């Protein structure tokens, strides 16, 4: 599917897992089969929808859930928590990922605004998953001590494997 590394059809499929997060969920720096959503699918046998977005934020996680959760209604929603110092904005029909790289819309990165936004997004994500009776698990997983991916910036396959195992414990 465009912009996602998701291989599954979007349809009602409660016996599934939705994975959201940033480039670390998308799998920048690793192959598709090495991403934590792909490894989780392999180890659980449940279809895992990879809705990771490079540059994504908690705002993005909510937006993606708002788009896909009503259709799929997965029993599990697993969030790989992105940096809180990022935002997302819809601007003339496009999703703008805002972070340290941005020249525009940096008003949204004010420290107090960021602090409030984290709580707001987490509450919003909690409510949308609650509405669909999905079990919500959020993990903020450090990549220190793991290898790097092929871009020498994002985490490598061992990090993805470890995170996949962490999420699997929640099932």
């Amino acid at each position, binding site marked *: 599917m465009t912009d996602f590394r998701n291989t599954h059809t979007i349809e009602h499929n409660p016996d599934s897992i939705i994975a959201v997060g940033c480039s670390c969920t998308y799998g920048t720096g690793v192959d598709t089969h090495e991403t934590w959503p792909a490894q989780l699918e392999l180890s659980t046998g449940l279809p895992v929808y990879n809705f990771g977005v490079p540059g994504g934020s908690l705002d993005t996680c909510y937006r993606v859930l708002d788009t896909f959760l009503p259709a799929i209604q997965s029993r599990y929603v697993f969030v790989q928590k992105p940096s809180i110092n990022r935002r997302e904005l819809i601007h003339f029909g496009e999703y703008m990922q805002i972070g340290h790289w941005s020249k525009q819309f940096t*008003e949204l990165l004010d420290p107090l605004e960021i602090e409030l936004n984290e709580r707001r997004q987490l509450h919003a994500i909690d409510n949308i998953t609650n509405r669909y009776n999905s079990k919500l698990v959020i993990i903020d997983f450090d990549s220190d001590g793991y290898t790097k991916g092929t871009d020498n910036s994002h985490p490598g396959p061992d990090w993805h494997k470890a995170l996949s195992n962490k999420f699997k414990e929640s099932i």
Partner: protein
Amino acid sequence: MEKNNFRLWHSVEYNPDSIIVAGPSTDYGIGVEMHECWPYLLEQMLDIPVYNLSVPGGSVDTCYRVLDTFLPIIQSKKIIAIPALVARREIINSHAKFNNGPVRNSIYIQIGSWSPDYQFLLDPEELELNVKRQRDAIASITREYNSELILLEYPTQWLLDPEHSFPHVHDYSKGTDNMHPGPDWHIAVAEYVRKHYFND
């Protein structure tokens, strides 16, 4: 009594047997005296403390922010949220103090048609998603504190109410600013809320 830019007449403290009202200027009571605004009248009718945490120029964003600040302290069992479903937003600028109408020396910027520098936050698609996001966030934070959430949505309330009995501002007098509703509307809203949500 004006406290911290709110029309609060109670101390902010743990008080679960109370009601929080979080809305925009109409609920703050712009155009009427404090003792004439509907949250004050509701308190008189029910004999339950009402915290009026409404903000002039406020948006659905403001509604969540106010609950995030005060609900953990007061932990009211009833929350009446009035998310203004109009093209408004709020963001924080921690380096500045803004004077937004009656809101003085605030770091909270109320954004609307009057804010040329922040029109990017008022993109129609962005607004539509934002309303859903904030409403979800408001529902979650009230559930976290075991509070009952009552959503009053003025532009649609009149249509949603099968009796069409929600007081429509056009049927009432204007306040002293000749724009916001006058005292008779506030009396009617207090009566409506009491009748529909408090079985009194």
